[in-house]
């Protein structure tokens, strides 16, 4: 498991990086965190001719705020988002909830958010958030700058609309307002594997009713999915009707964390959503209409649809709980 030989350049400016990518090489790869790329190179499933290491490029390691959006540079590592304050408002909480599901700390010290989006693994947490929130991917080549909407960016497993001579310099997310609650729930078999399903949700509440809902699904199709059918179900739903009794995080995540109290989670009674609850209906819509799960070991499409339905419901409850605990102290329903 040793990489094949390649040439290597470590430019200091985006311009130099773009020049390197524009060369006439057969296979040029951008190295940022490298936590997927170098893995693939070990397996020799990727054998680049040239690796462009952008880690020395100035200015790409920043999170910038402008005009209601947050711009994440290509060198911002996953671990930055572990702090909910890294990004203002509900988006910061959403990122913080999501990022702990990405591998484990030594991977998060190297890997980057933009790298995950460039890699476009169907199970990627960041990709699901990107489609849910209509993120914009900013790419640069010798021809100039291009902006690609997330919905147009992901074309299939590890396939994107980025051209080989383009480099992603940043991804822009819209900031979420104070009346938005967020949730992120992931289901996987052990701590160390890809998500079987992950769901990101952001719901905006006005006068006790959901006025906007955004749901992103990871590993529910050959690319990240925005669950528009599920979102439609939610518009106008009354959140006071939601039984948003928060699950223990472990139960929500489908995680296998042992519990400390001797009799486990005995008191989840009543936490199963009634089938006609809007969140349950949204879950069913996501599973049946939005998702297109492919077969994989231990998760055939039938089982995956079940998980999607359940996880969407749980994520929405988490989002409502998040809205309640953050929005109300700041002055009630806005």
């Amino acid at each position: 498991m040793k990489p094949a030989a390649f040439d290597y350049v470590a430019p200091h400016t985006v311009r130099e990086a773009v020049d390197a990518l524009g060369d006439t090489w057969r296979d040029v790869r951008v190295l940022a965190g490298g936590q997927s790329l170098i893995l693939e190179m070990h397996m020799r499933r990727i054998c680049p001719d040239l690796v462009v290491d952008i880690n020395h490029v100035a200015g790409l390691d920043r999170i910038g705020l402008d005009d209601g959006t947050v711009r994440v540079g290509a060198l911002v590592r996953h671990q930055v988002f572990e702090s909910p304050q890294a990004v203002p408002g509900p988006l910061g909480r959403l990122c913080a909830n999501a990022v702990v599901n990405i591998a484990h700390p030594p991977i998060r010290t190297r890997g980057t958010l933009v790298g995950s989006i460039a890699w476009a693994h169907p199970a990627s947490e960041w990709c699901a958030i990107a489609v849910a929130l209509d993120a914009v991917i900013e790419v640069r080549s010798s021809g100039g700058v291009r902006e690609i909407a997330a919905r147009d960016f992901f074309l299939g497993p590890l396939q994107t609309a980025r051209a080989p001579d383009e480099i992603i310099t940043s991804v822009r997310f819209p900031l979420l307002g104070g009346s938005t609650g967020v949730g992120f729930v992931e289901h996987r078999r052990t701590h160390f594997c890809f998500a079987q399903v992950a769901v990101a949700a952001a719901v905006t509440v006005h006068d006790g009713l959901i006025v906007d809902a955004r749901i992103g699904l990871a590993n529910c199709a050959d690319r990240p999915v925005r669950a528009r059918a599920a979102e439609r179900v939610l518009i106008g739903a009354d959140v006071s009707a939601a039984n948003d009794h928060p699950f223990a995080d472990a139960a929500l995540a489908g995680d296998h964390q042992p519990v400390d109290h001797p009799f486990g989670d005995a008191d989840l009674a009543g936490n199963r959503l009634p089938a006609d609850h809007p969140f349950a209906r949204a879950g069913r819509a996501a599973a049946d209409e939005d998702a297109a799960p492919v077969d994989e070991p231990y998760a055939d499409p039938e089982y995956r649809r079940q998980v999607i339905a359940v996880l969407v419901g749980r994520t929405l409850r988490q989002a409502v709980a998040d809205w309640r605990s953050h929005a109300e102290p700041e002055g009630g329903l806005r």
Partner: protein
Amino acid sequence: MKLWTRREDARLLTGHGRYVADLVVPGCLDAAFVRSRVAHGLIREVDCSAAREVPGVVGAWSAADLSELPVCANEAAHLQDLPPVPRTMLAKLSTEDAVNGREWPSLAKDRVRYAGEAVAVVLGEDRYRAEDGAAEVTYRIDPLPAVVTPAAGAADSVSLFDGLSNVAFRGTAGEPIEEVVWRRAAAVVEARYRQQLLLPTPMECRTILAVPEDGRLTVWSGHQMPHRLRLELAKSLGWPAERVRVVVPDTGGAFGSKSATFPEYVAVVFLAVKLGRPVRWIEDRMESMSVATRGRGQDQRVRLAADEDGRLLAYELEIDADVGAYPHLGVGLPMQTAWMATGPYMTPRVHATVRSVLTNTMVTYPYRGAGRPEATAALERSMDVLARRLGLDPAELRRRNLIPPESFPYQTPTGRRYDSGNYAAALELALETIGYDAWRAEQARRRARPDALPLGIGLACYVERSGGEPGGLHDFAGVEADEDGAIIAHCGAASSGQSHETTFPALVARTLGVDEYRVRLVEGDTDAQPEGLGSFASRSAQVDGAALQNAALLFAERARERAAELWGVPVEEVEWSGGTLYPVRDGSAGMDLTELVKATGPLRVHERFESGMGFPFGAHAAVAEIDTELGVVRVLRLVAVDDSGVVLDPAVVRGQAFGSAVQGIGQALYEGIPYGEDGVPLMANGLLDYLVPTASEIPPIEIKDTCTPSPSTPLGAKGAGESGCIGSPAAIVNAVADALQIADPDLLQMPLTPDVVWRAARAPKYEEA
């Protein structure tokens, strides 16, 4: 205070351990193997020519190329062809009959029989260059249909070896049970269980470094049985065993999987000798996952009968074992399950049959537990089904049937003679430790609430076998003193993490009454210890410990004899105490061992020692709750009560019991090898696909022990270290079945992944009896 708890720690914690990959040998070449991406097929062409042009590649060969390798002026000149893989001769793991007509070439010649089988080998100046070469080798293989389950293999619609059945071995234990027994029984339960294939997954994969020098060959390998490796490699080369030295340096875990001579080892040794150059193969993780030996792999059908009081009447176990593509290493391994089918119960009639079936998978071989987890899972799951049928508490059903302490030695219907035990004591301790009654109350409370997460309690009583099989129950040990007064203990074992360096000197020191640090251990070097068997079957303490104790006692005896001769007194008048010899009568000052050795020369005792079989036992209990919407199993508690007889170092034994239990959790819930239609394992992302438990998955585990000394060895020790893999999987699966109250036990097959559990949760529940 001692700086280090174990002697090994001083180097292993500071980066100064020496595993094979850490050894620096100038001019050493790295081997990389070109592996078939096809599970079953006919080799039409293997072309290594492009690989030979790659910079840094020293050579590249298919099997056919190797026979044309120029004869070089050295001792192996007569070796024309690459020798095939030798068969295991120990513990009836393989048989002459099974191997006859079925050659296992070290590099596939005309046919591949499992995905990953090597079709060519490339040597490079380092591993990077060797892999560069391997990437340039091309081959053409015409695929044949692949069979990856015992049922498909046994159907013989696809033959792995032309003209021969895929059923390579049949065996039985116990006498057939007449139909009338089943007819007259008050309750009979039947079920089918799958014991899935597992990857042992030591953190260090397999390693071998072969250094030819002065007409001899030194082989460094992370290995459990250095003397076996020496013998089999020497035989392959046509050499006397003395010309091969095997050295086992630090070994990064083994769990049974590092005790054989593997195809790659034969190829590496052959090339080293042919080329007269050091060659090493450091297996990488992806290779290990595709071509290291697997464990388990049985499809079982059981029948268990009891009378109306719950007394067991008869038990029948039919095993279709998936032994992989070649019968050489483990075709007889499923007999361990058959011989242990009786379990800890007084069942009067037990009959077990084995069919070992060749399939297009890598070979099945002992993995921690090796046949006993399969026996325990089948019986203990059936006990729970029976308890429900009879309306008895599962603990009570077990109580009524456990072999009582006064019945030992106990001759089982399947041919074992259990040495000693107090099985009920282990069960009661497990029940008490987990708080059985309180959990049953909690379960009742939850069952009354339709939305509560279902909760189940699972038990597994087990008895296993340690030490080895007849013919392999011995080992060799020695105690020596040189003129500096240091005492050196020798034995045939080889540690892969079991703390021999600490525990064995402590035992010898205790036996001799000297300071622990005066004794040092030498093992894992066939030059320093000419004969030995190794570390397998949980035997280190039971067999090698007893052998060392025996050698130490003889050593003290010899020292007394020498002193007696020196002093001109009868030996009865010389006393050994704390490393000093005293004349009993005249009360004069004693003579220290060091002085004795200075006066009379080095003192060396080397002895062969034979142990009986040991039968460790215990009871494991698990509590699990199920998120039925997702199928997620959360183990809330796991209790393991093990009886390993007299233990040498309780902390070391507990450590192994804990780690073993975690591997048991792995089998129960996470680990398995899915295969595609083409017979290729679906594990392209390595350890992101084959999921061993991480710290996240570990429930609160409590390890307890009882102590019933074994009469089979003077130390009273039974085997330790495998118990968790034997007892825990059945306990966990029983807990899940209990939580879900499923009527059909066949629906729960390991690993209990969320999809499996979700489906089982929707299946019909049994009627409360």
